């Protein structure tokens, strides 16, 4: 005889059309499996009623519609438990009834079946590029997810941010190219198959471009040459904030995208690699007045979107609408979403697209103390997550150096990109700026009491030229995007090295390769956190297209044959990463003090010119060198070797005097981009001793890196 009594809170209390119901719990929002049934909970500040719409999986028409009984409603939350649902085989949506009065912001339409904003899994677009049935009554279909993945003891890695080397990648683009050789191309499983490559490169964080469910068909443009419809390949347009992109899963057509993504995270973690998600909270896929009604517009338009006084959509994102992130309800949704990804998917951090928008008030004005950013910074579940802002938006707010940080936020340092690029191509007047960038941009961050780790350093990102294109094109070539080359940035600070585009000229090609090495060397010896974009380590090209968001072709995929074509560049990058990992002096958390505070006889950082201890800061100077004193590494707590780096961006070679080391130490050559591979970089610890310890010859447009021990 059992001594336990069945819980009374799992018994039905109501019936509707053969379905057994009871009042639900308002928390958590969304659909949650509970004993014997499913708890549905959805809120709307302005709807008068709500109906749960149930479909058999893939069925064109609903199999049932169950109005939420008014006596189940708590505040503005519609909630109920429906018992005995075959949760593996159903899809659900909502109909919301309420006023349609766009002038005051209401766009209710009970003829539409709406996606749950908290849907954990979304069907309907399970296979990438497979055209949907546009007449379907329900495009993006919410499904139920059991939270019982077997993590086998995994947990987010919590790699200190100063030790991170970030690799930005597109899940599909990473392995979709036929040359990838993986079994499941273009998928989460495909990324997992390439983990050995990532490990050998040495990166320890992958930053995935958007993987929240989006609609790749959200693009009306046509390729001007082929006539094919262009896609939204990048995915910066969210359909569902809680659901992984199903078409990125090889198992998506079986509805197993959640398992497949979690397996990828678990496998990356097992190999010492963290996962950061690029998250897009600034707008949704619903566009403006002309866009489709998928979810938010029909559930609570006036709450979710920033609206003009006439009820039109503000467009700070450049994509039609702007999510109303500092509305308390939307703010909570963003928090719920990030907590869900951190807790359920073991995600290690987030990079926020156009994050400056998150600091605007509901009328668009920048807030001094934005509640959303503060909430995220102090949240206990997100406490160990890396938070990275793209500190600008399409509405003209540029906050690099001034983004509200609360001691937690790092940011994409656009000024690092711009300064290093201009120095690299030989612009005058750049040595002062570059000296700041190399130090982790104290000019931008120390005033706000932010450390060097606030600066995510990058020279290239998904948005803009690839590294190879940056040294091969003066101008963007975006004709294939179908906008007459008007889209994409015109401020690229790029230099083609003497010829626009591909060339057989061996001198130009050698210079381009050297410039790529120069760029990557500068990135990897700078204080702050380096970020490399997928494929730059093997000279991936987009043929001069600096805005390839719409191309699901080999223009934007990683061509793995480049790994065999450019082993020298790949070897150089992986050695520079290994060198960075070997030297804590390159990974300081605090800014330099420009003094000797440990009594070593050397300042923590010192600047040098062609004469030691005599840097040339004049406008026409294109040479600068710096010496890091190993005894000051990590504030003097972690003894390291001495490191000397000379950056000659002049077109002429220079004979350079190098500073003396303490008695008993000698300079060894780690890298010289002017030398031919494989002598352009050495394995850390195996660097050859420099013959002449007083003078060196630094080639034209070259970087040399020495280690003193």
């Amino acid at each position: 005889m059992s001594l336990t009594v069945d819980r009374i809170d799992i018994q039905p209390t109501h019936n509707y059309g053969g379905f057994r119901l009871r009042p639900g719990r308002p928390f958590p929002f969304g659909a949650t499996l509970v004993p014997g049934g499913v708890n549905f909970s959805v809120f709307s500040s302005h709807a008068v009623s709500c109906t749960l719409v149930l479909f058999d999986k893939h069925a064109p028409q609903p199999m049932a519609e169950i109005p939420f009984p008014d006596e189940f409603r708590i505040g503005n939350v519609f909630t109920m438990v429906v018992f005995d649902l075959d949760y593996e085989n159903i899809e659900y949506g909502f109909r919301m009834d309420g006023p349609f009065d766009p002038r005051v912001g209401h766009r209710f339409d009970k003829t539409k079946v709406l996606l749950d904003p908290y849907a954990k899994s979304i069907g309907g677009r399970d296979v990438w590029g497979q055209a949907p049935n546009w007449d379907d009554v329900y495009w993006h279909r919410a499904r139920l997810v059991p939270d019982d993945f077997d993590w086998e003891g995994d947990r987010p890695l919590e790699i200190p941010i100063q030790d991170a080397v970030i690799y930005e990648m597109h899940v599909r683009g990473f392995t979709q190219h036929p040359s990838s050789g993986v079994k499941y191309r273009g998928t989460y499983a495909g990324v997992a198959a390439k983990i050995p490559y990532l490990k050998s490169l040495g990166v320890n964080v992958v930053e995935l471009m958007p993987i929240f469910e989006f609609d790749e068909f959200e693009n009306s443009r046509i390729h001007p040459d082929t006539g094919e419809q262009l896609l939204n390949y990048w995915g910066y347009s969210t359909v569902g904030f809680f659901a992984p992109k199903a078409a990125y899963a090889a198992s998506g057509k079986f509805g197993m995208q959640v398992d497949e993504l979690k397996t990828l995270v678990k496998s990356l973690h097992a190999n010492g690699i963290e996962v950061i998600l690029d998250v897009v909270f600034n707008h949704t896929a619903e566009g403006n007045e002309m866009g489709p009604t998928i979810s938010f517009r029909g559930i609570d338009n006036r709450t979710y979107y920033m609206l003009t006084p006439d009820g039109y959509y503000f467009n700070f994102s450049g994509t039609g609408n702007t999510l109303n992130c500092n509305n308390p309800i939307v703010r909570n949704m963003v928090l719920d979403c990030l907590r869900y990804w951190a807790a359920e998917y073991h995600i290690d951090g987030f990079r926020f697209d156009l994050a400056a928008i998150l600091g605007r008030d509901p009328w668009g004005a920048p807030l001094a103390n934005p509640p959303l950013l503060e909430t995220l910074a102090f949240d206990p579940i997100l406490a160990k997550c890396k938070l990275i802002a793209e500190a600008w938006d399409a509405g003209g707010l540029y906050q690099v150096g001034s983004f509200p940080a609360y001691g937690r936020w790092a940011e994409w340092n656009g000024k690092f990109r711009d300064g290093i690029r201009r120095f690299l191509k030989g612009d005058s007047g750049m040595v002062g700026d570059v000296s700041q960038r190399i130090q982790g941009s104290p000019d931008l961050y120390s005033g706000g009491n932010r450390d060097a780790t606030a600066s995510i350093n990058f020279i290239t990102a998904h948005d803009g030229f690839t590294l190879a294109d940056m040294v091969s094109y003066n101008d963007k070539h975006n004709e294939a995007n179908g906008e007459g080359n008007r889209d994409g940035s015109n401020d690229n600070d790029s230099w083609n090295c003497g010829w626009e585009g591909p060339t057989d000229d061996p001198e130009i090609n050698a210079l381009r390769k050297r410039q790529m090495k120069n760029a990557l060397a500068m990135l990897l010896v700078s204080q702050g956190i380096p970020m490399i974009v997928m494929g730059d380590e093997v000279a991936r090209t987009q043929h001069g297209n600096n805005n390839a968001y719409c191309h699901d072709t080999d223009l934007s995929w990683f061509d793995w044959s480049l790994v065999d074509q450019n082993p020298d560049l790949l070897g150089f990058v992986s050695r520079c990463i290994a060198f960075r990992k070997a030297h804590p002096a390159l990974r300081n958390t605090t800014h330099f003090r420009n003094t000797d505070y440990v009594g070593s006889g050397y300042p923590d950082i010192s600047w040098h010119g062609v004469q030691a201890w005599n840097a040339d800061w004049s406008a026409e100077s294109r040479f600068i060198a710096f010496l890091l004193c190993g005894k000051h590494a990590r504030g003097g707590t972690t003894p390291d070797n001495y490191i000397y780096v000379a950056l000659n961006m002049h077109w002429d070679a220079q004979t350079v005097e190098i500073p003396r080391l303490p008695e008993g130490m000698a300079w060894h050559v780690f890298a010289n981009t002017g030398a031919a591979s494989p002598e352009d970089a050495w394995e850390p610890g195996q660097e050859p001793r420099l013959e002449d310890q007083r003078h060196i010859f630094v080639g034209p447009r070259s970087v040399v890196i020495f280690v003193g021990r």
Partner: protein
Amino acid sequence: MAFTVNGSVANGVATITLSGELDAAGAPAFREQVEKVSSESPKRLVLMVQDLEYIASAGLRVLIFSKQKMGAAVDIYVVGAQEQVQDTLEKTGFSKSVISVERYDVASA
């Protein structure tokens, strides 16, 4: 094809034979078998799946359940998986948690 499941334990080896399509409807029966054989504390679980045509998420969850129920020391063998079933195990990463073999000789146990 309808889902069927049978189980037995002999010499410390639990054998469960699955056939047909293992979806949410069939998963409870599979789970029941797992619970039944695990009560005899086997040292190994052998899943004969030569005639299993399809495995859905619900079926995979029973696999996880088996592992958790029997403990990490109990090896799980998946024998003779058809391509689609093996594919599903690989894509979702479950293939790393089990030992996939084409044939299993009971005498070698």
